[in-house]
């Protein structure tokens, strides 16, 4: 764990500096977590809901964080779990099978006011949305966020080998989609 994170945790444990430390944590990690969630859920409002819930969970559970992993991998894990749970609930409500999100999220993408990409970016995003949730997650984390496989392994609880293979398959699928469209 980094010295900054350690200091932050110590400040959080002190009731007098607890709010200040939490505010620092939110400011430090909000962007990274937001973009991580946004790539899963696509829609800004959904992302905002989930991100706020993630921070509330962090507030409630930070005292129990033992520092066995890096703080940011712990935060990413919470954000990933919350996002997947939210997505599955939304799919259930919409009557979409849990393993099928493509059309559902593509509709989100088309109605998203905060998408500023050009045609080719839109096509790439649609290609990414054809991937199963877990594969999509691995692709986004590796391709856009450039997170190391070791860190991803900690966040997702999957072996490095499986992640590498998942990323490789995802890249091939996306390439195929781009070729055929």
């Amino acid at each position, binding site marked *: 764990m980094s010295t900054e994170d350690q200091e932050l945790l110590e400040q959080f444990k002190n009731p007098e500096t607890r*709010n200040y430390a*939490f*505010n620092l944590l*939110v*400011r430090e990690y*909000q*962007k990274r977590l*937001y*973009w991580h969630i*946004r*790539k899963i859920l696509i829609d*800004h409002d959904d992302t*905002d809901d989930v*991100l*706020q819930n993630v*921070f*509330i969970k962090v*507030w*409630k559970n930070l005292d129990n964080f033992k520092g066995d992993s890096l703080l940011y991998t712990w935060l990413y894990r919470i954000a990933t779990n919350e996002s997947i749970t939210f997505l599955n609930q939304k799919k259930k409500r919409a009557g979409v099978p849990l393993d099928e999100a493509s059309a559902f999220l593509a509709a989100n993408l088309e109605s*998203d006011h*905060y*998408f*500023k*990409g*050009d045609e*080719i*970016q*839109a096509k*790439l*995003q649609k290609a990414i949305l054809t991937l199963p949730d877990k594969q999509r997650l691995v692709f986004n984390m590796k*391709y*856009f966020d450039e997170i190391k496989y070791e860190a991803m392994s900690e966040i997702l609880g999957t072996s490095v080998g499986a992640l590498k293979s998942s990323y*490789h398959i995802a*890249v*091939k699928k*996306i*390439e195929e989609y*781009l*070729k055929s469209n």
Partner: protein
Amino acid sequence: MNNSTNINEDELNGQNKKNPFETDNAYFENFSSKMQNRIDEFEELSSIAPLLNAIPKYNPFETPKAYFEELPTIVQERVIKVKNTVTMKEWLIQIFQPRFLAPVLTVLIVAFTGINYLNRTTTTPIINDEYSIYEELEHIDESTLIEEVVALKTTETTDENEQVVDYLLENELEEIN
């Protein structure tokens, strides 16, 4: 040049010229392997996915204006609400703390005793008329009853009178006249 500038230059010249910046100890040891990994990944990507590789890599999504400036305040407000909301679990834990245990138990015992007392004293109303008359008769003096029956002897016998007679008979009062 004035004196003070000369002093500063002298001081600077006298300083041990040392790089004030530092890196992680393993940074340079790992640098070449990191670079090699990046090159491998790039080459792999360009060989298996040339179309994907040709797409400029940037984040195509936006947020509303000032979203990240406002979010910490919104989160803090929600945290305050959460802190003020006592969940059922926390409430139960609080109640069963030693300092609250005695008053809570007292209230429970008083409530239990009260309910028990009310259940005992509140009897179900007797709707059986026959039983009701027998109950009433038990509290009336027997000679009064005999007088009453004699007085009614000449009048038409009612169900109620028959019940009075039955009662007297059961209590071994054969002679009523």
